[in-house]
């Protein structure tokens, strides 16, 4: 007796020590090994570890001798109502023979007899909280006694199992929470850096990841337009044409959840939807409205389709969905907002360009006049040559070829004007900043001349290229140069000079600076110069620097201004250098 007790103590400590160090992923296997050891030690026919779950049956770890059927689930309310109730209260159920069961356990007794169970002991598993499961041992070949001392030792054993189960539950839920947090943060990062152009691809990717995480088959994101219509939808797996689900869509638009486990339970007005669910073989589904700024911007729908994969914790799922919903809602509203700002920005740059054109008109007329003047003189010369008694054909030919060349020069001026006036979509391509500066310098050449300013370019060689929209970046440089020229309007004491400089900025950036020898920026104005409609010029729109800053921001750069030590001001901007792995 003492020897048996010692053996049991040894087994118990071995099992406990073994289970403590097992990682969560192999706990089930370890539990099964432990169960087998106990069954062998006790000399019983089968042992079970049933994990309790509120919804449906939980996982079961069992061990039975060869040729012995697995025992029925004692937590099954239908077969074992009395046993389940006892265990639910935290009581141990044991009987050496089924006759020991009380009157009220008649149903249980019949179930035990049907399963061939002759003796049984069931111990509720708890780690100080709610019931985690049941550890049970049964004998089918013979009846056996469960002395109090043995039950007490089994209770100790059950505590080791319970704490292991609890550890597994905590670790798994922690792991899942971590996994969820990771998913959530990576989704919000992906969405926050998203430009409108990448939206479709990124949403598809996000849906795939969420669907994988939730273990569902289908997911879709619906976008509602501001006028209440359905703007767009993205989906995984042949899913979903919102037209097929008018009832669900209208519910979502009202801000309601549409969640069901079987579509047959949907009301009559959802007849169209029900047909579609049937066609798509949709079983449980959850659809949640996406709210942003008090309005429904879209909906997020998940369904399991044919493969049913029950979720253990509805509450956790709903919390996760809510958080995911926020991420998607944010993405949708950001996308809508970005499209709006992008449109505004294009509008603004167009206005900016046109107003800059106004300022440049005089100088551009001058620029056009040069080739036109040469053409006129050459044409008149040709007329003279042709009027001579002996026509010098060689001279005429030379004059005509000059006319052609000058005409091309005039056309080039007009072509550049067109480019500047173009109100097109953004076109991000690799660009040479020096080239852009050169083009703008060419454009303002006459303006600079008319204003009697000396303009100098100091371009750093071998600059890395940047990714940007040519026209917009030209616009930025143009605005800064016009701004600098404007600063030179009240004649400063020294020479009127403007320097456009390019350089390699720090941290893989390219810098463009426009330095003027004007009067500088008033201290009190340094914060305001980039604001729209701020101007010191009587005829200015006050948009130049504001537009420049908007564009530079959109290119991931920075625009700043400062006064020079030797007088005047420098406005400069940096653009991130293009990494070689970018397109």
């Amino acid at each position, binding site marked *: 007796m003492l020897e048996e007790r010692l053996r049991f103590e040894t087994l118990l400590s071995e099992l406990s020590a073994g289970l403590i160090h097992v990682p969560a992923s192999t706990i089930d296997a370890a539990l099964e090994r432990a169960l087998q050891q106990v069954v062998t030690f006790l000399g019983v026919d089968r042992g079970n570890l049933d994990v309790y779950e509120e919804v449906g049956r939980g996982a079961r770890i069992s061990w039975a001798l060869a040729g012995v059927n697995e025992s029925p689930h004692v937590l099954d309310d239908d077969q074992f109502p009395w046993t389940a109730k006892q265990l639910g209260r935290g009581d141990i159920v044991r009987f050496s023979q089924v006759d020991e069961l009380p009157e009220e356990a008649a149903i249980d007794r019949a179930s035990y007899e049907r399963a061939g169970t002759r003796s049984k002991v069931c111990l509720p598993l708890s780690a100080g909280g709610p019931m985690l499961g049941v550890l049970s041992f049964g004998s089918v070949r013979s009846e056996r006694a469960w002395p109090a001392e043995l039950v007490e030792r089994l209770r100790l054993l059950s505590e080791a199992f319970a704490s292991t189960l609890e550890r597994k539950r905590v670790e798994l839920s922690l792991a899942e929470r971590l996994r969820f947090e990771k998913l959530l943060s990576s989704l919000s990062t992906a969405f926050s850096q998203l430009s409108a152009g990448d939206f479709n691809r990124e949403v598809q990717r996000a849906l795939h990841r969420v669907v994988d995480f939730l273990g569902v088959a289908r997911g879709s994101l619906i976008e509602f337009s501001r006028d209440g219509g359905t703007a767009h939808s993205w989906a995984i797996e042949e899913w979903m044409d919102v037209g097929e689900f008018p009832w669900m869509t209208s519910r979502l638009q009202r801000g309601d959840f549409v969640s069901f486990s079987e579509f047959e339970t949907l009301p009559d007005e959802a007849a169209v939807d029900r047909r579609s669910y049937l066609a798509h073989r949709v079983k449980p589904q959850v659809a949640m409205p996406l709210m942003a700024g008090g309005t429904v911007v879209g909906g997020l729908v998940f369904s399991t389709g044919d493969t049913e994969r029950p979720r253990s914790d509805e509450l956790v799922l709903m919390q996760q969905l809510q958080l995911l919903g926020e991420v998607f809602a944010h993405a949708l509203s950001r996308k809508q907002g970005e499209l709006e700002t992008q449109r505004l920005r294009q509008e603004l740059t167009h206005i900016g360009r046109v107003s800059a054109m106004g300022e440049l008109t*005089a*100088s551009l*007329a*001058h*620029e056009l*006049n*040069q*080739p*036109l*003047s*040469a*053409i*006129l*003189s*050459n044409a*008149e*010369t040709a007329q*003279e*040559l042709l009027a001579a008694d002996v026509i010098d054909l060689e001279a005429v030919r030379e*004059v005509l070829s*000059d006319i052609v*060349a*000058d005409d091309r*020069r005039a056309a080039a001026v007009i072509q550049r004007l067109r480019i500047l006036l173009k109100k097109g979509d953004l076109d991000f391509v690799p660009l040479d900043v020096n080239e852009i500066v050169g083009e703008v310098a060419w454009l303002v050449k*006459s303006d600079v*001349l*008319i204003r*009697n300013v*000396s303009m100098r370019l100091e371009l750093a060689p071998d600059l890395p290229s940047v990714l940007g929209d040519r026209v917009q970046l030209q616009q930025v440089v143009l605005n800064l140069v016009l701004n600098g020229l404007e600063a030179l309007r009240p004649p400063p004491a020294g020479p009127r000079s403007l320097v456009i400089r390019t350089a390699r900025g720090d941290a893989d950036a390219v810098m463009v600076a426009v330095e003027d020898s004007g009067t500088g920026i008033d201290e009190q104005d340094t914060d305001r110069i980039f604001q729209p409609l701020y101007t010191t010029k009587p005829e200015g729109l006050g948009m130049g620097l504001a537009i420049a800053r908007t564009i530079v921001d959109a290119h991931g750069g920075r625009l700043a201004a400062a006064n020079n030590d030797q007088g005047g001001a420098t406005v400069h901007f940096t653009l991130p250098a293009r990494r070689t792995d970018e397109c």
Partner: protein
Amino acid sequence: MLTTAAPLVFVVDDNPAVRKSLGRLLALAGYRVEEFASARDFLTRGSPEGPCCLVLDVRMPGLTGIELQETLAAAKRRMSIVFVTGHVDVPTSVNAMKRGAVDLLTKPIDRQALLAAIARAMAKDAASLSEELRVAEIRQRIGTLTIREAQVFALVVTGMLNKQMASVLGVGLKTIKVHRAKVMAKMRARSMAELVRLADAAGVHAGVAQAVA
């Protein structure tokens, strides 16, 4: 060669196409043409001998056309200027004309207008040139006077009487009369009025005479 007598037109414009087309047009019209890309380049060229004029762009990098006009005036260099510009601005134009420009033409430049302006500029230059020659001739005559004769010349054209001059110069009345006759002969003046005009043209005045004395 006789063609050296062909009047010379300088074209100063920073735009190569304009410069070349103007040069070609003027050459065909019978002028000798010299082209310059900047005002500074033009200044390095010495003063021309014969009749000439300047077709000058108003706005150029570096020294502008207007500044070149001022520089030439300050150096008292004879030069008739026809301005050309692609961008008319009234104050600059008025200024240029006030400083003696012959004309200011807007690009694109009409051939007839240009040739007419150049003809006027050449006429003006010819007039200045002959005036210059006349002054040089008078100066040359003044150069033949002795110091005493020069003093008498300077004083007599101020309307001083022989008696007064004798007193000022501390010589006898007779001596003054002899010097005066010598001045009239050497200056080839037939009357007192003509002598005064010659003195004016050469910029001779009493101050000079007193200084000489």
